[in-house]
């Protein structure tokens, strides 16, 4: 397909339901700026860069950076919805993360807020492997977290549990509130930026938390 003629072609007759979500297919070059321009007209909450594991590691990371630059450019000029979105991607080298974080940081003044969520598959796999080697009992725990019928980790708004506006609350009180709803309180995410969430630093039972009116206050549960 030539990039300069028709970049994106939708296939509405191929749309279908999958689980509780609807899926539609668009033919277009994912590496092309024109593809992003076409997408910039719709509401987007997250953009996932998939299939990068098929590329050599350094090339995959280079593609992430390249796509991030294009996304920022589109966001600075053409993006219709201004609420912001997250770019989610695998990443192979921590050095690349520093470059990506720099781009995100420099892009703070863009009219559309963009955050970045990256997963380093090799580091995750190594981390699990090493933890299980040192403490085999963790094997069972990780398998539960990773398997389909097992437990999952979720992030929820503090407001969902009525925590906002009540002044200082003890963490064990937060834990008790969440237990009443069948969930377990793991910690807090002080979502200042995607770069520096502060999860779990407030798990001390006696520490007091204070959830303000900002929608950014979130708790992490499973």
């Amino acid at each position, binding site marked *: 397909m030539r990039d300069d003629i028709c970049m994106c072609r939708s*296939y509405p007759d191929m749309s279908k339901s999958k*689980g*509780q*979500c*609807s*899926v*539609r*297919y668009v*033919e277009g070059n*994912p*590496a092309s700026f024109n593809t992003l321009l076409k997408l910039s007209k719709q509401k987007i*909450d*997250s953009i*996932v*860069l*998939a*299939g990068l594991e*098929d590329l050599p590691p350094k090339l995959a990371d280079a593609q992430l950076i390249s796509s991030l630059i294009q996304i920022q450019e589109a966001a600075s000029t053409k993006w219709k919805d201004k609420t912001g*979105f997250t770019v*989610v991607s*695998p990443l192979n080298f921590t050095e690349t993360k520093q470059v990506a974080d720099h781009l995100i940081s420099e892009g703070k003044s863009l009219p559309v807020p963009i955050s970045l969520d*990256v*997963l*380093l598959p090799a580091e*995750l796999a*190594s981390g*699990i*492997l090493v*933890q*299980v*080697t*040192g*403490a*085999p*009992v963790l*094997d*069972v*725990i*990780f398998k*539960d*977290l990773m398997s*389909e019928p097992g437990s999952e980790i979720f992030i*929820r*708004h503090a407001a*969902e*549990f*009525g925590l906002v506006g009540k002044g200082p609350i003890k963490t*064990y009180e937060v834990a*008790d*509130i969440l*237990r*009443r709803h069948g969930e*377990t309180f793991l*910690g807090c995410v002080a979502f200042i930026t*995607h770069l520096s969430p502060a*999860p*779990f630093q407030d*798990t*001390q039972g*006696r520490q007091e938390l204070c959830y303000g009116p900002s929608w950014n206050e979130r708790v992490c549960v499973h």
Partner: protein
Amino acid sequence: MQISEASKERGSFKCPIVVLADVDKDELEERVSQDSEGLGLRIFTRKGCTHDPMDLKRVAAATAKYVIWLEPEEDEISVAARRACAIASLKALGAGHDETAKMVVQTSHDSMKSAFQLTDVPLAFRTPPPKERRRLDVIEMYEEENFDRLLAQSALQPGLSAIISDVLQHNIGPEFYVSHAHDFGGELYSTARRHFDSAAVCGVFTPGADPQFDHGEVILNPPDDTVLRKEDRLVLLCNSEKQAVAKAEPLPSSGIWVNDVQREHVACQSENVVVLCFGEESYTDSGLVDSIAMFAPKGTNVTIVAKSVKSITTHA
């Protein structure tokens, strides 16, 4: 780096590390040296075959406290053969005879679910049954579609990737531990979990009857009225082993106001997800889309962009 962090936090791996690989020794040495710079680990490299008993003997694998066997990038049948030979070789060399040894075998898929019914890890380990009791523990870690699931969850919940990385990797954040030195027999889970003021209590772990062959059972997020047995231990998320020790005095009870708090749904997830598919022309994103569908709330819209939609829909 993970080994370096684990040795600091859990006290494991405080011993020399030998890397055995069937690649050029100079290349291996350079790579290892580069990756381990500044980590303070004693690492030795050897060229050799990871399932050859002679090469395993040369690096004293049978007397190693930990052996981590990484799956080669080959077809399933070749991998199964090499893996079985590696496990059998270690047993033949006497691993676990004099001292406790742990072997972690990394696999891309659960070896017991192979369509070809190849020699899986448990079969290689238990066959033939040992004449004498051996202190060798073999654990299989398989990846399956884990990464697609993690990517999908991160796409739906911005910020989750940092949490996942914190929990799964050894770094400054918390890790999973299991409580010790406290008998919770007869206590309710709701009471037992109040004995930790610096840890998130996540669940209950019950050790297996024979730890060598049964690694036990875990129930994460159990009901509060679960009655614990004497052998049960609590699963904790905390920063160090010290925080996994139960306090003698439990935390005080919460105020009555806690019972009156109502839950209201507040959207915290992505509802419009775009998936840009890179990689091979024949790449199919069905694994990722399946994972998104598994976690997505009702009404989520997914847009898949690829060079060739036909190749995707053929495989979906």
